[in-house]
């Protein structure tokens, strides 16, 4: 889809699916799932991997030629997140950072105050900041205002598989944003992903929906198709919803039966 580029932090991607690695049952399954998903960018928790070690998650990404998007999962304060982001930049040589500042362990919801604070600091420090945020249109706008390269609202809590609980907020965020809006967290199955794309999201980020599925590789392939289907539907423009039926085979389109020239 050359005419439908997905640009994030100055790089153009042909896949709009960003994958995560958390919860993968094995490196082998992870590798096959990533391949099946068609992803070109995958997020890795910097607190749980060591960039200097080969044979682990980062080696799989290197082998598959997939870009690494470091994230700050597990941070509870702006200070920790900023520190983790700087260590990630040093270790991986990338300015990209998926910024996560979590408010509490039970819900894993973002802490909006700390998030905005960290985003501002990191943007000033030259990072390309992709913040994991609440589905709050006001906060999304503020994150964009401080210079984030995208906003990544949650559909529902991380790992919950509850889909997009407030599609209306997503619509509000997408309508206002001048940066890409990426669904982050909550996707449970393919229809959740298709809905996000139909609502105008530029991409989808997911991990658990694939890694914790009974057949992760199959689900990864399903998600790839869902992103593509949802994007195509969004670009095509859906029909208005009607209360009553509208015949799809009007009379002017019917074949005329000529008794002189039988059709078959």
């Amino acid at each position, binding site marked *: 889809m050359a005419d439908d580029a997905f640009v994030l932090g100055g790089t153009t991607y042909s896949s709009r699916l960003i994958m995560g690695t958390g919860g993968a049952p*094995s*490196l082998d399954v992870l590798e096959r799932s990533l391949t099946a998903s068609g992803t070109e960018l995958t997020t890795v928790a910097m607190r749980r991997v060591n960039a200097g070690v080969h044979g682990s998650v980062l080696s799989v990404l290197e082998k598959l030629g997939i870009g690494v998007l470091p994230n700050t999962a597990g941070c509870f304060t702006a200070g920790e997140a900023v520190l983790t982001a700087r260590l990630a930049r040093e270790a991986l040589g990338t300015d990209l950072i998926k910024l996560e500042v979590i408010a509490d362990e039970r819900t894993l919801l973002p802490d909006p105050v700390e998030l905005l604070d960290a985003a501002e600091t990191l943007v000033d420090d030259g990072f390309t900041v992709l913040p994991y945020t609440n589905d709050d249109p006001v906060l999304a706008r503020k994150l964009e205002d401080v210079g984030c390269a995208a906003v990544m609202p949650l559909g529902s809590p991380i790992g919950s598989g509850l889909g997009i609980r407030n599609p209306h907020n997503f619509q509000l965020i997408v309508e206002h944003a001048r940066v890409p809006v990426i669904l982050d967290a909550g996707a449970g199955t393919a229809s959740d992903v298709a809905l996000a794309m139909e609502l105008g999201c530029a991409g989808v980020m997911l991990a658990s929906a694939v890694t914790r599925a009974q*057949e992760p590789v199959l689900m990864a392939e399903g998600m790839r198709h869902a992103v593509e289907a949802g994007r195509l539907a969004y670009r095509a423009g859906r029909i208005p919803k009607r209360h009553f039926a509208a015949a799809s085979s009007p009379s002017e389109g019917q074949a005329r039966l000529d008794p002189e020239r039988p059709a078959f």
Partner: protein
Amino acid sequence: MSRTPSTTTDAVVVGGGIIGLVTAWRAAQRGLSVAVVDPEPGGGAAQVAAGMLAAVTELHYGEQTLLGLNVESARRYPEFAAELSEASGRDLGYRACGTLAVALDADDRAHLRELHALQRKSGLESEWLSGRECRRLEPMLAPGVRGGLRVDGDHQIDPRRLAGALVTACERSGVVFHRTWAERLSVVRGRARGIVLADGGELAADQVVLAGGSRSGQLAGVPDEVLPPVRPVKGQVLRLTVPKRYAPFLSRTVRAVVRGSHVYLVPRVNGELVVGATTEELGWDTEVTAGGVYELLRDAHELVPGITELPLTETRAGLRPGSPDNAPLLGPTALPGLLLATGHYRNGVLLTPVTGDAMAQVLATGELPEEARPFTPRRFSGASLEQPA
């Protein structure tokens, strides 16, 4: 039993952890002359591991092939433990106490019900219990327990005692220990011929078994195409002590998934209570961290609130040898004379009996037994995850 000394050993085993030791012991029992190279035989991951023999409660989607090997090894355990106790004159702390896997909230409960369904589909024995039934079995469990799975077939052993007993059994069956590092594999005319030792010595051998745990991919001289794709996966483990006045505290292994992370409590007869374990991809790092200890205690406390009264006697981190598909690599490689026994990941202690039997058979006869054949290292040839550093 004494052996005629010869310049060439039948088999040299690199790595004296439980996998290397059981390989050496079983091979010596078949009449082979065997040497083990390790600066500290009986050390390694077994010094940290909890020793759950959990073929059933550790079942995961997509690991049905591994399940077959796990179940077979669990089946052999009682006899193996009895034979090793006899051969070494040591008690292994083998305990047929069973395991109780519980759920602490509705989400965990749904997860556990799914595991139960998978267990039944796989023909495994487990029984679903209500929260009250769980707490009747183990009164120290938190009141919030919503239900659980009782698996009487998942036993435990003390891995430290297991390692010590294997060292003694090896010594008694004539295995020669070289207490130094292996420096390099000798390859002559396309065949593994022995090991060069760090102290300068050389061991000539007809066959070399690489059983170096998480370090198995590190031995110099091993050609890239047969180097095992094994990586270290860090696990932090705590040891508490149950004072006599609280005994038995817990009477079986208790485990749960708490918000996605696994926690287990393994009570030993001698009063030790093992709490584990984190899973971290941090390379060779074996630091114990505040976060690791906190998370383990937090989750264990949620499961069994009374643990706060117990002395915390040890904190330690070890390295699991992880393979790309979480299953071990057993048997001959593409390099003649070089065999692997590594990559056991979470299941090293459980797979000790079946690994020893399989490796001894392939060393003595050249043929892997049928149950070990799916685990040939050749399944990774051409698809190694190792990248040049």
